[in-house]
C-alpha cells in the first residue's frame, strides 16, 4: 500500500495514539510513548507488524502513543495509512 498524501488518525487522549503518515522515499518509523520504558518493544512490534500486513514499504510514519492497547495502536496505524493512500481496505489481509 502506497502512502500518497499526509494523513492523521487517532488522538492524544489517554489510551489512544496519534498516528501521522506522509510520503517518503524509504520507510521511516518514529515512535514516542508515555510507556516507552515498559512497553516500547511491544509497541514497536505492533506498529511494524501492522505496516507489514498493510504492505507499506515506504513512507514516514509517526506514532505518539498515550498508553493505547495493542488493538488501538493497530487501528490507528491502519486508519492513518488508509487515509494517506488511494487504496481501499482489504480486510482479508488484516
Amino acid at each position: 500500500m502506497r502512502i500518497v498524501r499526509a494523513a492523521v488518525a487517532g488522538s492524544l487522549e489517554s489510551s489512544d495514539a496519534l498516528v501521522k503518515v506522509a510520503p517518503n522515499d524509504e520507510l521511516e518509523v518514529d515512535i514516542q510513548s508515555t510507556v516507552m520504558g515498559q512497553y516500547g518493544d511491544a509497541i514497536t512490534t505492533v506498529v511494524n507488524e501492522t505496516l507489514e500486513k498493510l504492505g507499506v514499504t515506504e513512507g514516514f510514519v509517526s506514532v505518539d502513543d498515550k498508553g493505547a492497547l495493542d488493538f488501538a495502536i493497530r487501528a490507528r496505524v491502519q486508519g492513518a495509512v488508509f487515509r494517506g493512500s488511494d487504496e481501499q481496505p482489504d480486510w482479508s489481509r488484516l
Partner: protein
Amino acid sequence: MLFVPGSNASWLSTVHVYGADTVMFDLEDSVALREKDTARILVREALMSPIWKDVEVCVRVNAIDTPFFRPDLEAIVPAGVAIVRLPMVRDADMVRELDRVLTEIEEKCGREVGSTKCMAAVESASGVVNAVQIAKASSRMVAIALAAYDYMIDMHTVRGTAADESELFYARCAVLHAARVAGIPCYDVVYSDVNDEEGFLREIGIIKRLGFDGKSLVNPRQIEPLHNAYAPTEAEVDRAKRVIEAADKAEAEGLGVVSLDGKMVDAPIVASAYRTVRLAELSGTRR
C-alpha cells in the same frame, strides 16, 4: 445494553470491566462524520481483541440508506461481531436486506452463514406500526429495541415530564408485543440524563411493569441501578424455588396438577419461577 462510542479508544479499552450484559460499540450517532472511517477500524480491531472475548458485543452500524452501512458490515462481520444493531428500521424489507448483505459477506469471508445475529431499532411511527413484521423478518433476529429521539420527532411530540411517560406508551406496548409474538427480547429507550437517578428509576419501574427485558444505557453508572431494579427480592427467589420443588415433586409422582400451600400452580407460574431463579443467578437479589 451499554452504548460505547466506536471512535473512543479509551472507552473501548476499559468499559468491559463494568459488567454490562451487552456492550454496544456505536458507529452511528455518537461518531462524527469525519471519524466514520477510523471508528469502523477501531471497532473492528476491538472486536478481535482478547479483552472483549468474554463479553457479548453488539455493533450499531449506520443506517441502511447511508454510504457507511455496507463498509461497516464488511469490516465487522469478518472480525466476528456477534450481533449487529440496525438503526432506523421502518419495515421488514430493511431487515431482509440486512440479512441478505450479511449472508453475502459471511460467504465471502468464510464465516458460517447465519451466525451473525441482528437486532432492529424502531425509531419511527412506521417502525412501530410494522413492528411485528420487523421482529419476524429474519431468523437472525435476536432482539428488537425502541429508540425515542427520532420517534418523538416523527410523532410531533417531545419527551415530557409526565410521570407515566404516556408519549411513549403506545410505542412501548406495540414493540413489546411484537417481540413477544416473535419470541425475542425487547429493550427500552435510553435515559440520557445520567445525573437524574430518580427519573431513571421511575422509568425502569414503568418498563419493568410493561414487560421489557432491559434497557439501552449511555453510561456505566446506569448499569448497577438497572440490574438492581430487575433483580428479584429474596422472598421472590425463595417462593420461586419452592414452586420449582413442588413442580419437580409432582412430576416425579406422576401428578398432573402441582399444588403449593393449598393453591394450584399452573405451567406459566412454574415457567416464571424458573425465570426468577435464573435472573437471581445473573443479577443477584435486590438490595
